[in-house]
């Protein structure tokens, strides 16, 4: 059924939207500080996987995008010596999140481009369907 295109593009948009949300979360928390490495905000990234519905089904070879989950980056947080900071620990250090803002900006561009791609696919498919409805008239 042709309406599967809408499902597929929709799942792609959903995944990219989540990615954009995570970028927003990462960028807005890029400067948050904490007094220990465990408490500090860590960069979050989505994990995408192709959802091969009924992989062995000969009629359905197309796959939607599945978001397996969100992982936290394992990179070490940035340690900064700031003894007068209210969050400073007993040694005078604060911990800043490991978000790489440049990386996140690139990530944002990529996500929004992919989102646009899916929208274009959807629009074209919609036009095709509308034309099909007018067939023979």
């Amino acid at each position, binding site marked *: 059924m*042709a309406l*599967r*295109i809408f499902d*597929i*593009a929709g*799942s*792609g948009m959903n*995944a*990219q939207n989540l*990615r954009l949300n995570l970028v927003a979360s990462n960028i807005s928390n890029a400067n948050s500080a904490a007094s220990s490495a465990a408490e500090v905000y860590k960069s979050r990234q989505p994990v*995408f*996987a*192709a959802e091969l519905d009924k992989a*062995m089904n*000969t*009629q359905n*070879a*197309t*796959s*939607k*995008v599945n978001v397996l989950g969100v992982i936290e980056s394992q990179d070490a947080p940035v340690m900064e010596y700031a003894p007068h900071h209210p969050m400073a620990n007993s040694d005078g250090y604060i911990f800043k999140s490991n978000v790489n803002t440049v990386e996140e900006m690139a990530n944002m561009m*990529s*996500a929004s*481009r*992919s989102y646009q*791609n*899916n929208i*274009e*696919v959807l629009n*074209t*498919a919609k*036009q*095709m369907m509308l*034309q*099909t409805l007018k*067939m*023979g*008239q």
Partner: protein
Amino acid sequence: MAINFDTALGIEPKALAFREKRGEILAANLANADTPNFKARDMDFKSVLKQSMASGESMERTHAGHIAPQQQLFGANLMYRNPNQVSLDGNTVETQVEQAKYAENAVQYQASLQFISGHFSELMTSLRGQ
């Protein structure tokens, strides 16, 4: 003589169904452009045409233990695309290529639609006899 839609419309309905399916596959490729290890897929119109021009006989599964043939759509194998450049995450989708193919497919779909409309208007003309 009765009007038979199968013969009146020719190969076009099949072509339309194929274009629709291919659109789905290309949409899936585009949607998974950022999915690690996703392999882009596509179908070849030529091989589909060859299959439907031939007798169209395919191996039948008469027993539950028989192994199903490879993923087949319209009698043609669903192929994996050979990327121009491989990416480190194992994804073989090249967005520009897929976009171009999708646009091509959409135009071809519209062409098939036009042909069918032409056939319909031919039928209408002959029905009216004017």
